[in-house]
């Protein structure tokens, strides 16, 4: 099982790091906020922060006892910054002119700040992590991928309608589907930790939950990669399926 876990979580971290770097490289040219925000999000939350949290909290972690708190704090701070960037991305891409979307992103960001400060008071000890601030933190963290997924899938259904009118490219529409299910898998990774805790199976990084997380991580990594950098063969496959559907109408 260790190999599967390593592959899943490793793929998620590596894909996040590569995607984040490539998106920031693109942002160097476009100078647009969405590319910058999602690039930062992948790098901080998906790659660096996730790795730090796994290292700090995994059962049998090799970290010396005194290092667990600081590494947990660093992981949490990094993930929270990445999550905040994802909230900005979703707001600016899907609801740029909606006051409620700006307020929702700000509210979720405030939860992240509050939970970080709350856990900092407790010194990021294990007990503190699973108390009141755990729930505040979970709400703030889970809101970002859940919202992102909802908006992407909603937009996918809209683009499917446009495809029928010749107003959208089927491959483009499919990329929103991939982005939506990838974000749903990211949400699932947060949810897995919660479920493991509620079932009392040894904390969010117990073996089973890590296995589920790694599977979701692998799935998310593939979906994200195909969203932003679909290879030519994949484009042709999706376009061909779209043409076949159109011919059948």
């Amino acid at each position, binding site marked *: 099982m260790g190999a599967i876990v390593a592959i899943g979580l490793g793929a998620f971290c590596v894909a996040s790091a590569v995607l984040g770097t490539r998106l920031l490289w693109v942002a160097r040219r476009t100078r647009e906020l969405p590319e910058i925000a999602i690039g930062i999000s992948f790098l901080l939350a998906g790659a660096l922060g996730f790795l730090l949290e796994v290292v700090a909290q995994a059962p049998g972690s090799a970290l010396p006892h005194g290092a667990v708190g600081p590494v947990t704090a660093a992981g949490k701070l990094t993930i929270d910054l990445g999550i905040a960037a994802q909230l900005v991305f979703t707001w600016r891409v899907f609801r740029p002119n909606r006051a409620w979307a700006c307020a929702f992103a700000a509210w979720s960001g405030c939860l992240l700040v509050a939970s970080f400060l709350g856990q900092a008071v407790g010194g990021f000890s294990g007990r503190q992590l699973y108390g009141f601030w755990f729930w505040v933190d979970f709400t703030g963290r889970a809101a970002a991928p859940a919202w992102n997924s909802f908006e992407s899938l909603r937009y996918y259904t809209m683009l499917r309608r446009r495809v029928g009118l010749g*107003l959208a490219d089927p491959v483009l529409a499919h990329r929103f589907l991939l982005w939506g299910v990838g974000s749903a898998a990211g949400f699932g990774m947060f949810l897995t930790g919660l479920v493991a805790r509620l079932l009392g199976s040894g904390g969010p990084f117990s073996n089973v939950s890590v296995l589920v997380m790694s599977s979701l991580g692998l799935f998310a990594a593939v979906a994200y990669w195909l*969203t932003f950098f679909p290879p030519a063969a994949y484009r042709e496959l999706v376009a061909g399926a779209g043409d076949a559907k159109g011919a059948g109408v």
Partner: protein
Amino acid sequence: MADSAPFEWLCGELERATSLDRLTARGAVRIVLKHAGLETWNVTSSQIGVVLQKRLPAELRARGIHDGDAHCRSIAARLAALDPGDAPGTAPEDLFRRLERR
């Protein structure tokens, strides 16, 4: 939240060309855009052109306007002559298009 200029333009044209009042004209356009997978805040002129051709005539017929096809053709011709042009991309898909030009 402000609706896009092409949306406002189409509603105004429809109100002038038909017997529909302001609210009904805007409602008809909103419904047609929704069924086409478009949103009022960022719909573009070229998208309005397609809607005028493929969706709005049926909606007008359903509202008892029997010469809806002629009205839509006339509005589409004015739209083409006006050629307001599409604003720089602010729609979600523009992000993916930008990334493709890496």
